[in-house]
């Protein structure tokens, strides 16, 4: 099926979503996604950041779709024409979506451990406005202790449901979910039962904001002071391929490896994530690749960090 996104035409399989077709093309025309996660079935359709304008429905029925559609949930039709960044309507709507997502967000980035790798920060930086118009009280929650490894900050949650899907699909027994409805909805464990599944730590990686963070890394450092290194170990539960975040010769935290859309490549187990913090536990392969525009690459040009940059320009140090 032929689909044209912002002037780029691509042939895709029937049943592909617009978002995935855009990702096949790549580049800046890929709509941002806060809730869609390619590794998790049924995710998407909640955050509305991936809204696009369909200017031509299909070859058979060329009428445009009247409303903006969520590209992560809309499948392509033959001859469909989609406008993403070339559409004023989309950019305007996205600005509104960011504003809505930030309405109840506490904006405590200076404290939040996710700052620097937070999708909401990136999204707000790119699409949001610099000032808030919201004057009312932001919603607050009672602190819920969901175990000694994962810290839940409900105020930061944007209700993307990724963690619930992770718990459903990656771990064998889900003990947490979304309670209540609408404005009062929150993630919680039933009767505050602690999450102690072997793969529950992956919720930290899939969380696009700082709602679920690593308690073993809590306030230890900022992500831009630690160096991400690809590392692996023999693990009987998971693939053992991870990224260790080092400060000098110390491992501060362990996360799964992520692709360019910041989605986990292979989920890792809690033993690797929380318990293996010795350099001797890991076979360190080399610096993990990070975007040179990311704050994580700040001050690391010559310290063994691989910075991706166009080779023609000669920036970065991506020596193969």
């Amino acid at each position, binding site marked *: 099926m032929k689909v044209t996104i912002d002037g780029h035409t691509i042939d895709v399989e029937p049943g592909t979503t617009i978002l995935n077709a855009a990702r096949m093309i790549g580049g800046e025309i890929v709509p941002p996604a806060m809730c869609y996660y390619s590794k998790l079935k049924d995710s998407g359709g909640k955050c509305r950041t991936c809204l696009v304008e369909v200017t031509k429905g299909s070859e058979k029925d060329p009428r445009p779709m009247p409303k903006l559609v969520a590209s992560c949930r809309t499948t392509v039709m033959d001859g469909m024409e989609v406008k993403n960044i070339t559409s004023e309507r989309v950019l305007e709507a996205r600005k509104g979506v960011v504003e809505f997502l930030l309405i109840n967000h506490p904006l405590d*980035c*200076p*404290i939040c451990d996710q700052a620097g790798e937070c999708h909401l920060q990136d999204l707000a930086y790119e699409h949001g406005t610099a000032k808030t118009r919201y004057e009312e009280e932001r919603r607050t929650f009672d602190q819920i202790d969901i175990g000694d490894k994962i810290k839940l900050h409900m105020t930061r949650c944007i209700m993307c449901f990724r963690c619930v899907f992770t718990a459903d699909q990656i771990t064998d027994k889900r003990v947490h979910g979304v309670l209540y409805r609408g404005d009062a909805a929150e993630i919680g464990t039933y009767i505050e039962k602690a999450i102690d599944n072997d793969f529950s730590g992956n919720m930290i990686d899939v969380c696009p904001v700082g709602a679920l963070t690593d308690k073993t890394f809590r*306030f230890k*450092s900022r992500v831009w002071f630690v160096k991400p290194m690809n590392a692996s170990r023999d693990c009987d539960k998971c693939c053992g391929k991870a990224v260790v975040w080092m400060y000098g010769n110390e491992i501060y935290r362990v996360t799964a490896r992520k692709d360019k859309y910041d989605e986990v490549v292979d989920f890792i187990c809690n033993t690797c994530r929380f318990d293996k913090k010795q350099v001797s536990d890991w076979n360190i392969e080399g610096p993990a690749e990070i975007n040179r525009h990311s704050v994580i690459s700040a001050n690391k040009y010559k310290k063994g960090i691989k910075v991706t940059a166009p080779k023609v320009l000669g920036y970065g140090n991506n020596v193969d």
Partner: protein
Amino acid sequence: MSVLSLTNRKKVLQKRKLTFAESIYLPAIFSGLMITIRHFFRRKSTVQYPEVKKPFSKVFRGRHILKRDEQGRENCTACGLCAVACPAEAITIVAAERKKGEEHLYREEKYAAVYEINMLRCIFCGLCEEACPKDAIYLTEETAPASYSRKDFIFGKDKLVQPLGTSAHPKTFKPYVKDNKPYQYKNPVNTKI
């Protein structure tokens, strides 16, 4: 031999025989003394430093201060933006979590347990002040004091945090202004900066 000249301003020195007036040197000595004497009656361009101090420019950037808010709680939340903005990498921060009962000491949930500025590295560019989202660090009008040993230049929280009960104004240690007006800089007196 021609030498490449860039400015055409060079003078070629030529040695010639001195005239009688020049060779007794006295007129030259007197004209030199006259210049010296004339300067006795001119306005002095120096000040007697420890007793007299020149006022600083309003944008002068001296040693750092970590501010407290009106309730005396430390503003700094150890977000690390100053350290990442610092071009000289002079700032080191170790964060800690605020415990119960410390709410009167620190404004946010997280605070800087260690905050060190290496004054030998610092170039007083003020980027830390610019980067701070919490209004915590400011460069004051004081110069960093001299010392004999290197370790004295690592300023910890004991030297950086604003003393309790001092000004809320960012730039000075001066006491609170009563009518809640911001501190006004006095006009510089009879000296130019």
